[in-house]
């Protein structure tokens, strides 16, 4: 790359500014760990602690049991995993149909999906809550999984990807050979869609893990909480100990940070690709 394309070699100023930005991005997480290793008495004093204390094990264990974080982590893993898997499957099937098949109302249905991109899901929570309550699903995990499977972004993203990645000639050839829908899906659509499926799956997993508003309505601290519900309970005084609250925040965040550290390249790529195409 030449300097003319706008990509200068970074000077020390660039590193300095990026370094500062990185510190700001990471510091609150580091300090969460520091606070989780202290006592609530120490956290009530000024200046705030900057070094690790000895209380981490105790606080984590209280957050895990009394704070319900253990159960919440298991629930959230289940919820986020189901949401990611389900969203990817539904979006791939519908995205393929929209990308490569002709059927009546295709244009109208696609328009409908696109129109809902700009409508926040929060708008529907009142009737949604009544439906869930009527079904007896409050405090049950399917109450937060099922609504999250509906991703207008997912369908449009997969459609866009398949329009580019699945040549129509390939489909025609498969049809000439007498391949049925199932075989076409398995042998043509799936391989072509895989990169977009990975991106969508990752983004859906993170979004479901951190989903807040609806889970706080549909689930309760003492019922079947997700991490966010349990943290809300902790934040509102369920366990009146600040260092335990911080230990809970640490427990609830750590899994995603580990995922980010291990799959950093893929997640960065996913956010960047998802945005360009989405």
């Amino acid at each position, binding site marked *: 790359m030449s300097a*003319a*394309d*706008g990509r*200068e070699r970074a000077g020390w100023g*660039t590193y300095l500014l*990026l370094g500062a*930005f*990185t510190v700001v*991005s990471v510091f*609150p*997480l580091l300090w969460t760990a520091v*606070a989780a290793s202290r006592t609530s008495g120490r*956290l009530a004093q000024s200046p*705030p602690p900057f070094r690790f204390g000895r209380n981490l094990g105790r606080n984590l264990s209280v957050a895990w049991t009394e704070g319900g974080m253990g159960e919440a982590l298991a629930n959230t893993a289940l919820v986020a995993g189901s949401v990611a898997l389900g969203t990817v499957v539904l979006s791939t099937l*519908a995205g393929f149909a929209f990308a490569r098949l002709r*059927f009546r109302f295709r244009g109208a249905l696609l328009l409908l999906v*696109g129109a809902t*991109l*700009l*409508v926040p899901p*929060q*708008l*529907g*929570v*009142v*009737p949604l*809550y009544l*439906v869930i309550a009527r079904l007896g699903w409050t405090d049950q995990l399917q109450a937060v999984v*099922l*609504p999250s499977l*509906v991703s*207008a972004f997912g369908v449009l993203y997969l459609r866009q990807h398949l*329009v580019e990645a699945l040549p*129509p000639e390939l489909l*025609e050839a498969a*049809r000439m050979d007498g*391949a*049925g829908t*199932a075989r076409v899906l398995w042998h043509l659509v799936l391989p072509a869609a895989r990169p977009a499926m990975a991106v969508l799956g990752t983004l859906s997993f993170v979004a479901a893990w*951190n989903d807040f*508003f609806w889970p*706080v309505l549909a689930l309760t601290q003492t019922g079947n909480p997700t991490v*966010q519900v349990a*943290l*809300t309970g*902790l934040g509102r005084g369920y366990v009146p100990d600040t260092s335990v609250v*911080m230990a809970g*925040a640490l427990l*609830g*965040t750590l899994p*995603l*940070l580990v995922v980010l550290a291990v799959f*950093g*390249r893929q*997640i*960065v790529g996913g*956010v*960047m690709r998802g*945005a*360009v195409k989405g």
Partner: protein
Amino acid sequence: MTEETARRALVPVAAERVRPRGRPLRSRAAPYALVAPFFLLFAAFGLFPLAATAWLSFFRVDLTAPEARQWAGAHNYARLLGDEFFWNALSNTVLIGLLATVPQLLLALGVAHLLAARLRGRLFFRVAALAPYATSVAAATLVFALFYGRDQGMVNWALGVVGLSPVDWQNGPWASKFAVASIVLWRWTGYNALIYLAAMGTVPPELYEAAALDGAGRWRRFWHVTLPGLRPALAFTGAVSAIGAVQLFGEPLLFSSGAGASGGADHQYQTLGLYLYEQGWVNLHLGRAAALAWAMLLLLVAGFGLVRLVRGGRGRGAR
């Protein structure tokens, strides 16, 4: 639809006639079977709740006895218009939204520009920029609430170190809005920076070369080449941020452990999302909550309409 035309041209007419009937892909049912799972859930959990929200907003509905709802006409809306807490929440939502979004997107532009340079350890910087995005609203807010503590918080301690007087971040009408907005700012700046970075990669290098040949400096190249190329990404992040800002809920709910759904002692940082929650799930008035939801939609539509109008009605939407 050019790909559609191309595909039709590829299908030999004769082959179409000869092909035996009943092949699943050819069958008329296949496309519907593929979209059906999505649309079933879409109808049940997307379209129905939206339509039902409009319907319920004309009723008096008690959370504890939703079956015994009573027709209320436009009462819920009329009540909102005369409700000082509604106007307060509306103005808080707009102010916190602006405080969070405008600096966030500008900062993200700057960070993206830095990340676009040739860097050592660029993957590290990019992954680190996503750490706040991976942190949940709840976890982030709980830590920031401690940072902003009046007597023991790190922010006031740092202010004291440089000789400034402490700020009451919980109770100050502006300070608390700024503090809540800063949580949003922290969580989303890196994410938006990566989106801008991706968009910067789609700008053809020839444009930079041409601009450099014309003697354009670094800043002018950014202004005249990079920025126009970012327009779709700017629209996308702007729209997503606006949707997020209108729905802001978790940050003000957890910012102070005692305040709950009131958004501070004087409701100084109660947003529309929080007020919806308070009306529906604390005061048990689901009809009012539904009317609030529609007010939020209206706010978004008005916002997007305004943007369109300002851009001369020919701008491309976020999607």
